[in-house]
Protein backbone atom coordinates (compact mmCIF):
# COMPACT_ATOMS: atom_id res chain seq x y z
CA UNK A 1 0.00 0.00 0.00
CA UNK A 2 2.84 2.42 0.82
CA UNK A 3 4.24 1.89 -2.64
CA UNK A 4 0.88 2.92 -4.10
CA UNK A 5 0.83 6.04 -1.97
CA UNK A 6 4.41 6.93 -2.92
CA UNK A 7 3.52 6.48 -6.57
CA UNK A 8 0.51 8.85 -6.28
CA UNK A 9 2.60 11.42 -4.41
CA UNK A 10 5.20 11.22 -7.17
CA UNK A 11 2.60 11.88 -9.85
CA UNK A 12 1.32 14.88 -7.87
CA UNK A 13 4.89 16.17 -7.46
CA UNK A 14 5.48 15.93 -11.20
CA UNK A 15 2.27 17.84 -11.93
CA UNK A 16 3.31 20.57 -9.48
CA UNK A 17 6.75 20.81 -11.06
CA UNK A 18 5.08 21.54 -14.40
CA UNK A 19 2.71 24.26 -13.21
CA UNK A 20 2.10 26.87 -15.92
CA UNK A 21 3.75 29.66 -13.93
CA UNK A 22 3.46 32.26 -16.70
CA UNK A 23 -0.29 31.72 -16.96
CA UNK A 24 -0.71 31.86 -13.18
CA UNK A 25 1.22 35.17 -13.21
CA UNK A 26 -1.12 36.46 -15.93
CA UNK A 27 -4.10 35.44 -13.79
CA UNK A 28 -2.66 37.31 -10.82
CA UNK A 29 -2.28 40.44 -12.99
CA UNK A 30 -5.89 40.11 -14.17
CA UNK A 31 -7.04 39.94 -10.52
CA UNK A 32 -4.84 42.92 -9.65
CA UNK A 33 -6.46 44.96 -12.45
CA UNK A 34 -9.95 44.04 -11.17
CA UNK A 35 -8.91 45.19 -7.69
CA UNK A 36 -7.66 48.53 -9.07
CA UNK A 37 -10.99 49.28 -10.74
CA UNK A 38 -13.04 47.93 -7.83
CA UNK A 39 -14.43 45.11 -9.99
CA UNK A 40 -15.83 41.79 -8.76
CA UNK A 41 -14.51 38.29 -9.24
CA UNK A 42 -17.00 35.53 -10.02
CA UNK A 43 -15.92 31.90 -9.65
CA UNK A 44 -17.74 28.64 -10.31
CA UNK A 45 -17.37 24.96 -11.15
CA UNK A 46 -19.09 21.59 -10.64
CA UNK A 47 -18.80 19.20 -7.67
CA UNK A 48 -15.29 19.28 -6.21
CA UNK A 49 -14.52 22.36 -8.33
CA UNK A 50 -17.46 24.18 -6.74
CA UNK A 51 -16.03 23.30 -3.33
CA UNK A 52 -12.65 24.73 -4.43
CA UNK A 53 -14.42 27.87 -5.65
CA UNK A 54 -16.21 28.39 -2.33
CA UNK A 55 -13.04 27.77 -0.32
CA UNK A 56 -11.13 30.25 -2.48
CA UNK A 57 -13.81 32.95 -2.10
CA UNK A 58 -13.47 32.77 1.68
CA UNK A 59 -9.67 32.93 1.50
CA UNK A 60 -9.61 35.68 -1.08
CA UNK A 61 -12.13 37.96 0.57
CA UNK A 62 -10.88 37.53 4.12
CA UNK A 63 -7.66 35.55 4.62
CA UNK A 64 -5.75 37.74 2.14
CA UNK A 65 -6.31 40.69 4.48
CA UNK A 66 -6.45 38.80 7.76
CA UNK A 67 -3.28 40.22 9.31
CA UNK A 68 -4.65 43.74 9.15
CA UNK A 69 -8.33 43.39 8.36
CA UNK A 70 -9.25 46.93 9.34
CA UNK A 71 -6.30 48.64 7.64
CA UNK A 72 -7.39 48.02 4.06
CA UNK A 73 -9.75 50.63 2.62
CA UNK A 74 -10.65 48.29 -0.16
CA UNK A 75 -10.81 44.51 -0.17
CA UNK A 76 -11.51 41.96 -2.88
CA UNK A 77 -15.09 41.23 -3.86
CA UNK A 78 -15.12 37.57 -4.83
CA UNK A 79 -18.46 35.79 -5.27
CA UNK A 80 -19.13 32.10 -5.89
CA UNK A 81 -21.91 31.46 -8.39
CA UNK A 82 -24.66 30.61 -7.95
CA UNK A 83 -24.59 32.35 -4.61
CA UNK A 84 -27.69 30.53 -3.32
CA UNK A 85 -28.92 26.93 -3.58
CA UNK A 86 -32.28 28.35 -4.55
CA UNK A 87 -30.86 29.88 -7.72
CA UNK A 88 -28.96 26.69 -8.51
CA UNK A 89 -32.06 24.50 -8.25
CA UNK A 90 -34.37 27.02 -9.90
CA UNK A 91 -32.15 27.38 -12.98
CA UNK A 92 -31.48 23.62 -13.14
CA UNK A 93 -35.11 22.62 -12.70
CA UNK A 94 -36.80 25.33 -14.75
CA UNK A 95 -34.33 26.01 -17.54
CA UNK A 96 -31.67 23.31 -17.59
CA UNK A 97 -28.50 22.32 -15.83
CA UNK A 98 -26.39 23.95 -18.52
CA UNK A 99 -27.62 27.37 -17.37
CA UNK A 100 -26.82 27.14 -13.62
CA UNK A 101 -23.77 29.42 -13.96
CA UNK A 102 -24.53 31.49 -17.08
CA UNK A 103 -28.02 32.27 -15.76
CA UNK A 104 -27.02 33.88 -12.44
CA UNK A 105 -23.84 35.38 -13.99
CA UNK A 106 -25.96 37.34 -16.44
CA UNK A 107 -27.62 39.13 -13.51
CA UNK A 108 -24.31 40.29 -12.10
CA UNK A 109 -21.70 40.66 -14.80
CA UNK A 110 -20.32 44.20 -15.31
CA UNK A 111 -17.55 45.44 -17.59
CA UNK A 112 -15.16 45.89 -14.67
CA UNK A 113 -15.44 42.25 -13.44
CA UNK A 114 -13.36 39.11 -13.85
CA UNK A 115 -14.47 35.48 -14.12
CA UNK A 116 -12.67 32.36 -12.88
CA UNK A 117 -14.00 29.12 -14.35
CA UNK A 118 -12.90 25.81 -12.82
CA UNK A 119 -13.41 22.59 -14.78
CA UNK A 120 -11.13 19.56 -14.59
CA UNK A 121 -12.15 18.30 -18.03
CA UNK A 122 -12.41 21.83 -19.38
CA UNK A 123 -15.56 20.73 -21.16
CA UNK A 124 -18.43 20.96 -18.63
CA UNK A 125 -21.24 22.44 -20.69
CA UNK A 126 -22.56 24.72 -17.94
CA UNK A 127 -19.07 26.13 -17.29
CA UNK A 128 -18.44 26.71 -21.01
CA UNK A 129 -21.81 28.47 -21.43
CA UNK A 130 -20.91 30.93 -18.69
CA UNK A 131 -17.42 31.46 -20.16
CA UNK A 132 -18.91 32.16 -23.60
CA UNK A 133 -21.21 34.77 -22.08
CA UNK A 134 -18.23 36.36 -20.34
CA UNK A 135 -16.14 36.44 -23.51
CA UNK A 136 -19.02 38.03 -25.42
CA UNK A 137 -19.01 40.84 -22.87
CA UNK A 138 -15.22 41.23 -23.26
CA UNK A 139 -14.68 40.44 -19.58
CA UNK A 140 -11.40 38.58 -18.83
CA UNK A 141 -11.60 34.85 -18.04
CA UNK A 142 -9.17 32.86 -15.92
CA UNK A 143 -9.65 29.22 -16.91
CA UNK A 144 -8.49 26.52 -14.48
CA UNK A 145 -8.57 23.16 -16.24
CA UNK A 146 -7.01 19.67 -16.25
CA UNK A 147 -6.81 16.61 -18.59
CA UNK A 148 -6.29 18.06 -22.10
CA UNK A 149 -7.76 21.45 -21.12
CA UNK A 150 -10.81 21.10 -23.35
CA UNK A 151 -12.79 24.14 -24.55
CA UNK A 152 -11.97 26.10 -21.40
CA UNK A 153 -8.28 26.15 -22.27
CA UNK A 154 -9.11 27.47 -25.75
CA UNK A 155 -11.42 30.22 -24.49
CA UNK A 156 -9.64 31.52 -21.37
CA UNK A 157 -7.39 34.60 -21.33
CA UNK A 158 -5.20 33.10 -18.59
CA UNK A 159 -4.96 29.36 -19.30
CA UNK A 160 -4.10 27.60 -16.05
CA UNK A 161 -4.01 24.07 -17.39
CA UNK A 162 -2.84 21.15 -15.25
CA UNK A 163 -1.96 18.53 -17.83
CA UNK A 164 -2.97 14.99 -16.84
CA UNK A 165 -4.18 11.66 -18.15
CA UNK A 166 -7.95 11.46 -18.83
CA UNK A 167 -10.00 10.76 -15.71
CA UNK A 168 -7.34 11.96 -13.23
CA UNK A 169 -9.82 14.11 -11.31
CA UNK A 170 -8.24 13.61 -7.87
CA UNK A 171 -4.84 14.72 -9.10
CA UNK A 172 -6.20 17.70 -11.04
CA UNK A 173 -8.42 18.95 -8.22
CA UNK A 174 -5.55 18.65 -5.75
CA UNK A 175 -3.23 20.72 -7.95
CA UNK A 176 -6.03 23.25 -8.57
CA UNK A 177 -6.26 23.73 -4.80
CA UNK A 178 -2.52 24.48 -4.72
CA UNK A 179 -2.82 27.00 -7.57
CA UNK A 180 -5.74 28.80 -5.92
CA UNK A 181 -3.78 28.96 -2.66
CA UNK A 182 -0.76 30.39 -4.47
CA UNK A 183 -2.97 33.29 -5.60
CA UNK A 184 -4.21 33.81 -2.04
CA UNK A 185 -0.68 33.76 -0.64
CA UNK A 186 0.61 36.12 -3.32
CA UNK A 187 -1.96 38.79 -2.55
CA UNK A 188 -1.58 38.27 1.19
CA UNK A 189 2.15 38.94 0.89
CA UNK A 190 1.56 41.79 -1.54
CA UNK A 191 -0.87 43.66 0.72
CA UNK A 192 1.32 43.13 3.76
CA UNK A 193 4.25 44.51 1.79
CA UNK A 194 2.21 47.55 0.74
CA UNK A 195 1.23 48.24 4.33
CA UNK A 196 4.87 48.08 5.36
CA UNK A 197 5.78 50.49 2.53
CA UNK A 198 3.27 53.07 3.66
CA UNK A 199 3.90 52.58 7.40
Amino acid at each position, binding site marked *: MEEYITQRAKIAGEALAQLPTGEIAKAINILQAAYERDGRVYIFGNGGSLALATHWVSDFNKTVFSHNLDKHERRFQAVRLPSTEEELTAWANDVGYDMVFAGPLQNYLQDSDVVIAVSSSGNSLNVIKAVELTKQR*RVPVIGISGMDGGRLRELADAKIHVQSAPGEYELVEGVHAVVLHIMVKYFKDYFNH*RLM*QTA
Partner: protein
Amino acid sequence: MIISRAPLRISFMGGGSDLSAFYEKEVGRVISTAIDKYIYLVFNHTPMVNRVTARYFHSESVNHPLELKHDRIREALLDLGIKSNIEIGAFAHLPSRTGLGSSSSFSVALMKGLHAYLGKKIGARESAEAAARLETDLLKEPIGKQDHYAAAAGGFNVLEFHPDRVEVQPVLLDFERRALLEESIILFYTNITRDASTVLTEQSVRTKDDSAHREIVRRMVDMVLPFKDALMKGNLEDLGALLSRGWQLKRQLASNISNPVIDALYNAALEHGAWGGKLLGAGAGGCLLFLAPPERHAAIKAALFACAREHSLEETSDIPVRFVQSGAEIVFNTHHPQMVRTLEPVWKST
Protein backbone atom coordinates in the same frame (compact mmCIF):
# COMPACT_ATOMS: atom_id res chain seq x y z
CA MET B 1 -24.21 57.58 -18.73
CA ILE B 2 -20.91 55.84 -19.37
CA ILE B 3 -17.54 56.54 -17.77
CA SER B 4 -14.46 55.13 -19.48
CA ARG B 5 -10.86 55.57 -18.48
CA ALA B 6 -7.36 54.76 -19.70
CA PRO B 7 -4.06 55.03 -17.81
CA LEU B 8 -1.05 57.15 -18.78
CA ARG B 9 2.26 55.37 -19.29
CA ILE B 10 5.97 55.60 -18.68
CA SER B 11 7.97 54.45 -21.68
CA PHE B 12 11.47 53.32 -20.68
CA MET B 13 13.16 52.31 -23.90
CA GLY B 14 12.71 51.92 -27.64
CA GLY B 15 10.54 54.95 -28.46
CA GLY B 16 10.73 55.85 -32.16
CA SER B 17 10.74 52.20 -33.26
CA ASP B 18 6.92 52.33 -33.09
CA LEU B 19 6.86 54.74 -36.06
CA SER B 20 5.89 52.99 -39.29
CA ALA B 21 9.00 54.46 -40.97
CA PHE B 22 10.95 52.07 -38.72
CA TYR B 23 8.82 48.96 -38.21
CA GLU B 24 7.83 48.61 -41.89
CA LYS B 25 11.39 47.39 -42.46
CA GLU B 26 12.42 45.76 -39.18
CA VAL B 27 10.89 44.79 -35.83
CA GLY B 28 10.32 47.69 -33.45
CA ARG B 29 10.31 47.13 -29.68
CA VAL B 30 9.38 49.24 -26.67
CA ILE B 31 9.18 48.55 -22.92
CA SER B 32 6.66 50.56 -20.91
CA THR B 33 4.27 50.46 -17.97
CA ALA B 34 0.85 51.90 -17.23
CA ILE B 35 0.72 54.20 -14.18
CA ASP B 36 -1.94 55.20 -11.68
CA LYS B 37 -2.78 58.47 -13.45
CA TYR B 38 -5.79 58.29 -15.73
CA ILE B 39 -7.82 60.08 -18.37
CA TYR B 40 -11.54 59.76 -17.62
CA LEU B 41 -14.23 60.38 -20.21
CA VAL B 42 -17.94 60.76 -19.54
CA PHE B 43 -20.51 60.05 -22.25
CA ASN B 44 -24.06 61.24 -21.78
CA HIS B 45 -27.02 60.73 -24.10
CA THR B 46 -29.21 63.85 -24.34
CA PRO B 47 -32.40 62.76 -26.14
CA MET B 48 -34.00 66.23 -25.90
CA VAL B 49 -30.96 68.23 -27.04
CA ASN B 50 -30.10 67.89 -30.71
CA ARG B 51 -26.54 69.04 -30.29
CA VAL B 52 -23.04 67.71 -29.74
CA THR B 53 -21.35 69.01 -26.62
CA ALA B 54 -17.70 68.48 -25.73
CA ARG B 55 -16.31 69.67 -22.41
CA TYR B 56 -12.55 69.57 -21.92
CA PHE B 57 -10.12 72.46 -21.44
CA HIS B 58 -12.63 74.41 -23.53
CA SER B 59 -16.35 73.81 -23.81
CA GLU B 60 -18.03 73.46 -27.18
CA SER B 61 -21.64 72.94 -28.17
CA VAL B 62 -22.37 72.54 -31.88
CA ASN B 63 -25.14 71.37 -34.21
CA HIS B 64 -23.03 68.86 -36.05
CA PRO B 65 -19.80 67.02 -35.17
CA LEU B 66 -18.11 68.57 -38.23
CA GLU B 67 -18.16 71.91 -36.42
CA LEU B 68 -16.19 70.62 -33.40
CA LYS B 69 -12.76 72.09 -32.85
CA HIS B 70 -11.61 69.11 -30.74
CA ASP B 71 -10.16 67.00 -33.53
CA ARG B 72 -10.19 63.58 -31.85
CA ILE B 73 -13.79 63.81 -30.70
CA ARG B 74 -14.85 65.22 -34.07
CA GLU B 75 -13.25 62.48 -36.16
CA ALA B 76 -14.33 59.70 -33.81
CA LEU B 77 -17.98 60.82 -33.88
CA LEU B 78 -17.93 61.19 -37.67
CA ASP B 79 -16.27 57.82 -38.11
CA LEU B 80 -18.76 56.02 -35.86
CA GLY B 81 -21.76 57.87 -37.29
CA ILE B 82 -22.79 59.58 -34.08
CA LYS B 83 -24.37 62.82 -35.29
CA SER B 84 -26.12 64.41 -32.35
CA ASN B 85 -27.64 64.12 -28.86
CA ILE B 86 -24.41 63.42 -27.07
CA GLU B 87 -22.36 65.14 -24.41
CA ILE B 88 -18.74 64.16 -23.81
CA GLY B 89 -16.67 65.39 -20.86
CA ALA B 90 -12.95 64.83 -20.24
CA PHE B 91 -11.17 64.71 -16.88
CA ALA B 92 -7.54 63.94 -16.16
CA HIS B 93 -5.22 63.55 -13.19
CA LEU B 94 -2.41 65.37 -15.01
CA PRO B 95 -2.17 68.13 -17.62
CA SER B 96 -1.55 67.31 -21.27
CA ARG B 97 1.89 67.32 -22.92
CA THR B 98 3.70 65.64 -20.04
CA GLY B 99 5.34 62.95 -22.20
CA LEU B 100 3.19 60.34 -20.48
CA GLY B 101 1.16 59.49 -23.59
CA SER B 102 -1.94 61.36 -22.48
CA SER B 103 -3.30 62.20 -25.93
CA SER B 104 -3.27 58.55 -26.97
CA SER B 105 -4.77 57.48 -23.63
CA PHE B 106 -7.52 60.00 -24.39
CA SER B 107 -8.14 58.39 -27.79
CA VAL B 108 -8.21 54.88 -26.32
CA ALA B 109 -10.72 55.88 -23.62
CA LEU B 110 -12.71 57.73 -26.30
CA MET B 111 -12.97 54.75 -28.63
CA LYS B 112 -13.69 52.32 -25.78
CA GLY B 113 -16.45 54.61 -24.47
CA LEU B 114 -18.03 55.48 -27.82
CA HIS B 115 -18.27 51.81 -28.78
CA ALA B 116 -19.98 51.10 -25.45
CA TYR B 117 -22.28 54.05 -26.20
CA LEU B 118 -23.32 52.23 -29.40
CA GLY B 119 -23.81 49.00 -27.45
CA LYS B 120 -20.59 47.37 -28.63
CA LYS B 121 -18.06 46.05 -26.16
CA ILE B 122 -14.50 46.10 -27.43
CA GLY B 123 -11.45 44.51 -25.82
CA ALA B 124 -7.93 45.86 -25.31
CA ARG B 125 -6.62 45.07 -28.77
CA GLU B 126 -9.67 46.50 -30.54
CA SER B 127 -9.50 49.67 -28.41
CA ALA B 128 -5.80 50.13 -29.24
CA GLU B 129 -6.36 49.52 -32.95
CA ALA B 130 -9.35 51.87 -33.08
CA ALA B 131 -7.39 54.65 -31.32
CA ALA B 132 -4.28 54.16 -33.50
CA ARG B 133 -6.49 54.29 -36.58
CA LEU B 134 -8.15 57.48 -35.31
CA GLU B 135 -4.87 59.28 -34.73
CA THR B 136 -2.68 58.03 -37.55
CA ASP B 137 -5.16 57.23 -40.37
CA LEU B 138 -7.96 59.75 -39.78
CA LEU B 139 -6.04 62.61 -38.18
CA LYS B 140 -2.79 61.91 -40.04
CA GLU B 141 -0.70 62.53 -36.95
CA PRO B 142 2.93 61.46 -37.34
CA ILE B 143 2.88 59.47 -34.08
CA GLY B 144 3.73 55.89 -33.23
CA LYS B 145 1.50 53.13 -31.91
CA GLN B 146 3.12 52.35 -28.56
CA ASP B 147 0.91 54.56 -26.43
CA HIS B 148 -2.37 53.15 -27.72
CA TYR B 149 -1.31 49.63 -26.83
CA ALA B 150 0.22 50.62 -23.49
CA ALA B 151 -2.98 52.43 -22.46
CA ALA B 152 -5.35 49.75 -23.74
CA ALA B 153 -3.51 46.74 -22.26
CA GLY B 154 -2.36 48.21 -18.94
CA GLY B 155 0.44 46.65 -16.89
CA PHE B 156 4.15 46.32 -17.67
CA ASN B 157 4.78 45.18 -21.24
CA VAL B 158 7.27 44.72 -24.02
CA LEU B 159 5.46 45.86 -27.17
CA GLU B 160 6.69 44.51 -30.48
CA PHE B 161 5.85 46.29 -33.72
CA HIS B 162 5.54 44.35 -36.95
CA PRO B 163 4.26 45.71 -40.29
CA ASP B 164 0.95 43.84 -39.86
CA ARG B 165 0.53 43.56 -36.08
CA VAL B 166 1.56 44.65 -32.60
CA GLU B 167 2.45 41.98 -30.04
CA VAL B 168 1.92 42.72 -26.35
CA GLN B 169 4.21 40.61 -24.16
CA PRO B 170 3.51 41.15 -20.46
CA VAL B 171 6.56 41.54 -18.20
CA LEU B 172 5.56 39.37 -15.26
CA LEU B 173 7.06 41.30 -12.35
CA ASP B 174 6.24 40.21 -8.82
CA PHE B 175 5.17 42.82 -6.28
CA GLU B 176 8.59 43.05 -4.63
CA ARG B 177 10.41 43.95 -7.83
CA ARG B 178 7.60 46.24 -8.87
CA ALA B 179 7.80 48.06 -5.52
CA LEU B 180 11.60 48.25 -5.74
CA LEU B 181 11.33 50.05 -9.06
CA GLU B 182 8.45 52.28 -7.91
CA GLU B 183 10.48 53.35 -4.91
CA SER B 184 13.46 54.26 -7.11
CA ILE B 185 11.55 56.43 -9.55
CA ILE B 186 11.55 60.21 -9.60
CA LEU B 187 9.15 61.71 -12.11
CA PHE B 188 9.84 65.42 -12.49
CA TYR B 189 7.42 67.61 -14.41
CA THR B 190 9.31 70.46 -16.09
CA ASN B 191 6.18 72.40 -17.11
CA ILE B 192 7.87 72.98 -20.46
CA THR B 193 5.09 72.04 -22.87
CA ARG B 194 5.58 70.96 -26.41
CA ASP B 195 3.63 69.39 -29.21
CA ALA B 196 4.81 65.82 -29.93
CA SER B 197 4.01 66.20 -33.62
CA THR B 198 6.68 68.76 -34.41
CA VAL B 199 9.41 66.57 -32.93
CA LEU B 200 8.07 63.36 -34.43
CA THR B 201 7.64 64.76 -37.94
CA GLU B 202 11.34 65.50 -38.18
CA GLN B 203 12.11 62.11 -36.64
CA SER B 204 9.89 60.16 -39.07
CA VAL B 205 11.40 61.78 -42.14
CA ARG B 206 14.88 61.05 -40.86
CA THR B 207 14.16 57.40 -39.94
CA LYS B 208 12.92 56.80 -43.46
CA ASP B 209 15.73 58.52 -45.34
CA ASP B 210 18.75 58.36 -43.13
CA SER B 211 20.50 55.05 -42.46
CA ALA B 212 22.63 56.46 -39.61
CA HIS B 213 19.45 57.61 -37.97
CA ARG B 214 17.85 54.18 -38.37
CA GLU B 215 20.93 52.65 -36.79
CA ILE B 216 20.38 54.77 -33.66
CA VAL B 217 16.81 53.55 -33.31
CA ARG B 218 17.99 49.99 -33.89
CA ARG B 219 20.49 50.32 -31.03
CA MET B 220 17.69 51.51 -28.74
CA VAL B 221 15.52 48.56 -29.79
CA ASP B 222 18.42 46.23 -28.99
CA MET B 223 18.50 47.59 -25.43
CA VAL B 224 14.85 46.74 -24.68
CA LEU B 225 15.38 43.07 -23.80
CA PRO B 226 18.51 43.76 -21.68
CA PHE B 227 16.40 46.37 -19.86
CA LYS B 228 13.72 43.74 -19.26
CA ASP B 229 16.32 41.23 -17.98
CA ALA B 230 17.80 43.77 -15.54
CA LEU B 231 14.26 44.54 -14.40
CA MET B 232 13.45 40.87 -13.74
CA LYS B 233 16.66 40.61 -11.70
CA GLY B 234 15.83 43.78 -9.78
CA ASN B 235 19.14 45.30 -10.85
CA LEU B 236 18.25 48.98 -10.54
CA GLU B 237 21.71 50.41 -11.11
CA ASP B 238 21.90 48.68 -14.50
CA LEU B 239 18.41 49.94 -15.32
CA GLY B 240 19.52 53.50 -14.59
CA ALA B 241 22.61 53.14 -16.77
CA LEU B 242 20.52 51.70 -19.63
CA LEU B 243 18.04 54.57 -19.34
CA SER B 244 20.84 57.11 -19.65
CA ARG B 245 22.39 55.33 -22.61
CA GLY B 246 18.98 55.27 -24.29
CA TRP B 247 18.53 58.98 -23.63
CA GLN B 248 21.95 59.82 -25.09
CA LEU B 249 20.95 57.96 -28.25
CA LYS B 250 17.49 59.48 -28.37
CA ARG B 251 18.90 63.01 -28.18
CA GLN B 252 20.48 62.40 -31.58
CA LEU B 253 17.16 61.56 -33.26
CA ALA B 254 15.87 65.09 -33.84
CA SER B 255 17.50 68.48 -33.38
CA ASN B 256 14.80 69.67 -30.95
CA ILE B 257 14.47 66.64 -28.60
CA SER B 258 16.53 68.23 -25.85
CA ASN B 259 17.49 71.79 -24.97
CA PRO B 260 19.89 73.48 -22.50
CA VAL B 261 17.31 73.64 -19.69
CA ILE B 262 16.46 69.96 -19.96
CA ASP B 263 20.16 69.12 -20.07
CA ALA B 264 20.78 71.21 -16.94
CA LEU B 265 18.00 69.43 -15.03
CA TYR B 266 19.26 66.04 -16.18
CA ASN B 267 22.82 66.83 -15.10
CA ALA B 268 21.65 68.16 -11.73
CA ALA B 269 19.92 64.86 -10.93
CA LEU B 270 22.89 62.76 -12.01
CA GLU B 271 25.33 64.92 -10.05
CA HIS B 272 23.22 64.33 -6.94
CA GLY B 273 23.29 60.57 -7.18
CA ALA B 274 20.72 59.38 -9.74
CA TRP B 275 21.66 56.09 -11.43
CA GLY B 276 20.28 57.36 -14.72
CA GLY B 277 17.39 59.05 -16.43
CA LYS B 278 15.74 60.30 -19.55
CA LEU B 279 13.19 62.70 -20.87
CA LEU B 280 9.81 61.01 -21.36
CA GLY B 281 7.76 61.17 -24.53
CA ALA B 282 8.61 62.64 -27.90
CA GLY B 283 10.97 65.27 -26.46
CA ALA B 284 11.49 69.00 -25.96
CA GLY B 285 9.53 69.16 -22.67
CA GLY B 286 7.19 67.28 -20.38
CA CYS B 287 8.55 64.97 -17.65
CA LEU B 288 12.03 63.77 -16.79
CA LEU B 289 12.31 60.29 -15.37
CA PHE B 290 15.15 59.30 -13.02
CA LEU B 291 16.08 56.10 -11.24
CA ALA B 292 17.91 56.75 -7.98
CA PRO B 293 18.53 55.13 -4.59
CA PRO B 294 15.57 56.13 -2.37
CA GLU B 295 17.91 57.72 0.20
CA ARG B 296 19.12 60.17 -2.48
CA HIS B 297 15.63 61.26 -3.54
CA ALA B 298 15.35 64.27 -1.23
CA ALA B 299 18.70 65.71 -2.36
CA ILE B 300 17.97 65.07 -6.04
CA LYS B 301 14.54 66.69 -5.86
CA ALA B 302 15.98 69.71 -4.06
CA ALA B 303 18.62 70.05 -6.80
CA LEU B 304 15.98 69.74 -9.52
CA PHE B 305 13.75 72.42 -7.99
CA ALA B 306 16.76 74.74 -7.50
CA CYS B 307 17.84 74.23 -11.11
CA ALA B 308 14.28 74.84 -12.32
CA ARG B 309 14.16 78.14 -10.41
CA GLU B 310 17.50 79.18 -11.87
CA HIS B 311 16.01 78.72 -15.33
CA SER B 312 12.78 80.54 -14.41
CA LEU B 313 10.60 77.43 -14.73
CA GLU B 314 7.39 77.85 -12.78
CA GLU B 315 5.04 75.27 -11.29
CA THR B 316 7.38 72.35 -11.75
CA SER B 317 6.53 69.34 -9.57
CA ASP B 318 7.49 65.82 -8.75
CA ILE B 319 4.74 63.33 -9.45
CA PRO B 320 4.43 60.26 -7.22
CA VAL B 321 3.55 57.19 -9.28
CA ARG B 322 2.63 53.58 -8.87
CA PHE B 323 2.35 51.06 -11.70
CA VAL B 324 -1.06 49.61 -12.52
CA GLN B 325 -2.30 46.48 -14.21
CA SER B 326 -5.55 47.99 -15.39
CA GLY B 327 -5.82 49.28 -18.95
CA ALA B 328 -8.66 50.91 -20.85
CA GLU B 329 -11.94 50.11 -19.18
CA ILE B 330 -15.56 51.04 -18.70
CA VAL B 331 -15.81 51.87 -15.01
CA PHE B 332 -19.46 52.91 -14.97
CA ASN B 333 -22.31 52.17 -17.33
CA THR B 334 -26.00 52.91 -16.87
CA HIS B 335 -26.50 53.67 -20.55
CA HIS B 336 -29.13 51.92 -22.68
CA PRO B 337 -27.79 51.80 -26.24
CA GLN B 338 -31.27 51.09 -27.58
CA MET B 339 -32.24 54.64 -26.52
CA VAL B 340 -29.82 56.01 -29.11
CA ARG B 341 -32.33 55.80 -31.92
CA THR B 342 -32.27 59.32 -33.30
CA LEU B 343 -29.19 58.45 -35.30
CA GLU B 344 -29.08 57.35 -38.87
CA PRO B 345 -27.54 53.86 -38.92
CA VAL B 346 -24.34 54.83 -40.71
CA TRP B 347 -23.11 58.31 -41.38
CA LYS B 348 -19.75 58.88 -42.92
CA SER B 349 -17.79 62.05 -43.47
CA THR B 350 -16.77 62.72 -47.04
